[in-house]
């Protein structure tokens, strides 16, 4: 790239012009002036024999210089104009970024709010679920006690029949059955059915001609009363109650056939749901008791 090396390269091959072998940068530096100026000056010197015309400036030159000035000014104006446009678009972009960031911020806020609400709703849901469980358990217990839920377990079975050959007075009456039921309740029975009809808190045996109706269903003798309870003590306790004694006296007097058995596993069905009608209601706040009928 230096001058000595260039000369060195030229050495062996004299036929090659220096303009070909000279390194590019050196050539650019040395020939920075257009060669044409030199050529034209040389030609002029040989033809007219003088270099007087070397500093003549014509109208063409002035026009070219004006064009150059115009070019520079236009380029400068254009650059500054572009700079303005760029600045404006930059400002627009920045404002749009700000807007979008605000939107994102709002949405983050919304997410936080919704998460809060979600948490609250979830805790409410958990509370409600617990209340529902308690209510279900309570309903189940109440259904078993009131007679609207099926129950099973150990118990006793007592069957009583009309006294044979004693006419109308030997028929089992509703009062007799009521004695039996009352005795069993007092002895600690938890659920009772007669001939498969569950005795609920609202059931009562009623005479209807020669049959006994309970829960709106007619039953006929023999009456099989199933009672759930501790079958080791239930029968003994029953015998000691007033109702039990009265029942014993009655059946003995009228010679009604009675059998009493302990049963290991009794199934007592639920009463028909149609029997479960609203009789009274109380508002949860407990202010106004309201009677249905």
């Amino acid at each position, binding site marked *: 790239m230096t001058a000595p090396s260039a000369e060195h390269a030229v050495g062996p091959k004299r036929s090659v012009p220096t303009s070909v072998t000279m390194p590019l940068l050196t050539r650019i530096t040395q020939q*920075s002036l257009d060669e044409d100026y030199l050529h034209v000056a040389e030609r002029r010197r040989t033809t007219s024999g003088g270099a007087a015309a070397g500093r*003549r400036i014509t109208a063409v030159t002035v026009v070219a210089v*004006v064009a150059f000035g115009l*070019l520079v*000014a236009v380029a400068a104006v*254009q650059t500054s104009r572009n700079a303005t446009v760029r600045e404006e678009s930059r400002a627009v972009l920045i404002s749009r970024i700000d807007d979008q960031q605000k939107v994102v911020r709002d949405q983050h806020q919304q997410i936080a709010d919704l998460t809060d609400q979600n948490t609250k709703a979830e805790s409410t849901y958990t509370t409600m679920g617990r209340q529902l469980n308690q209510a279900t358990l309570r309903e189940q217990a109440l259904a078993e006690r009131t007679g609207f839920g099926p129950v099973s377990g150990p118990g006793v079975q007592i069957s009583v029949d009309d006294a044979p050959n004693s006419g109308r007075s030997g028929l089992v009456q509703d009062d007799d059955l009521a004695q039996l039921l009352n005795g069993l309740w007092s002895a600690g029975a938890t659920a009772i059915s007669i001939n498969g009809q569950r005795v609920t808190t609202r059931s009562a045996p009623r005479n209807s001609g020669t049959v006994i109706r309970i829960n709106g269903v007619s039953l006929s003798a023999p009456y099989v009363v199933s009672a759930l309870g501790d079958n080791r003590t239930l029968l003994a306790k029953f015998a000691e109650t007033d109702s039990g004694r009265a029942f014993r006296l009655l059946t003995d007097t009228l010679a009604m056939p009675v059998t009493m058995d302990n049963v290991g596993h009794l199934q007592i069905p639920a009463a028909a749901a149609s029997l479960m009608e609203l009789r009274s209601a109380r508002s949860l706040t407990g202010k106004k008791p309201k009677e249905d009928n």
Partner: protein
Amino acid sequence: MIAALGLVVGIVLGLIFRPEVPVGLEPYLPIAVVAALDAVFGALRAFLDGIFDDKVFVVSFVSNVVIAAGIVYLGDKLGVGGQLSTGVIVVLGIRIFSNVAAIRRHIFHA
């Protein structure tokens, strides 16, 4: 003197009229200016050397501008982008610098 006046007139005209450059020609303008600058400095040096010729100046001015624009166009079309223009700028820049150095020697005799 008259050439310097011409330059001032040209700049003033450009600033007054502020002509709108078509978008398609916009990328050629800066490199055309550099090419024209090279031609102008070359002419100034030739003038000081006493070998100035108006025909050579005008021809070199126009051809410089056209070739510079053509190279940018070619670079765009070839997909080399600004790299070809960079080469042109480097060569023209070196020429401008050495011409300005020669002019400086003439003016300050140093």
